[in-house]
């Protein structure tokens, strides 16, 4: 079985499901299996070797049943949605507020959903509502992000010259 936690090179050979124009209410969800390998990779990439993410005993002492994934595992999925699907390539992530509601463990398959809450045509800033759930449908993250969308993804504003 192919591990679904890593971003495979062949993923990038497929055109993203990128709609030609964005509308409020539009949403995208992606799922990913959180594996020890992914957690190790995040620790390596960020230098965050907090043992609560990596060591069983430290996780137990901190009150968790097993090592807890970094929050970045979920934010990475948000980044993937923003940069690859909604709004898609050319987007620039400006701002976000997130709450981590429940721990995510290695072995959890998490699903992150981003939904367009509003679109500001003048600024090209798209506001996304974010939600993350684990395989038991328990909410693990919620938040809001502001993203500057590529020009071509927005309809002309009424009154503007197209």
């Amino acid at each position, binding site marked *: 079985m192919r591990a679904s936690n890593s971003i495979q090179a062949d993923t990038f050979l497929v055109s993203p499901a990128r709609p030609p124009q964005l509308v409020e209410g539009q949403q995208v969800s992606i799922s990913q299996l959180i594996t020890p390998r992914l957690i190790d990779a995040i620790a390596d990439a960020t230098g965050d070797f907090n043992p609560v993410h990596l060591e069983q005993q430290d996780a137990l002492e901190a009150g968790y049943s097993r090592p807890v994934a970094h929050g970045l595992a979920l934010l990475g999925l948000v980044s993937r949605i923003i940069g690859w699907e909604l709004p898609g390539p050319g987007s620039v992530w*400006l*701002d976000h507020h997130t709450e981590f509601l429940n721990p995510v463990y290695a072995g959890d398959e998490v699903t992150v959903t981003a939904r367009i809450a*509003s679109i*500001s*045509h*003048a*600024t090209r*800033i798209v506001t996304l509502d974010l939600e993350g759930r684990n395989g038991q449908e328990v909410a693990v993250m919620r938040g809001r992000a*502001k993203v*500057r969308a590529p020009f071509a993804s927005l309809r002309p*504003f*009424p*009154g*503007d*010259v197209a």
Partner: protein
Amino acid sequence: MSARDLPASVREVMSLVLGVPEQSLIDGASPATLPEWDSFRHLLMVLAIEETFGIRFGVEEMEAMASVRNIVETVRLRMAPA
């Protein structure tokens, strides 16, 4: 909100986004006079004004928002009854 309150409310939003005191947002204040007013904060400020007042601007309107006076006037026109 009364028409008299509008300029103060707009200045309050601008002050929060730009991180400058409201007193510095005189009518003629602009990106040329306030170093904090860069292109990035301009975007966030316009968005904050849209969200605060429940209005949406066009690109041309945003490009005309070159001073506090212009911004207050643009918001006033958008808020005016049709």
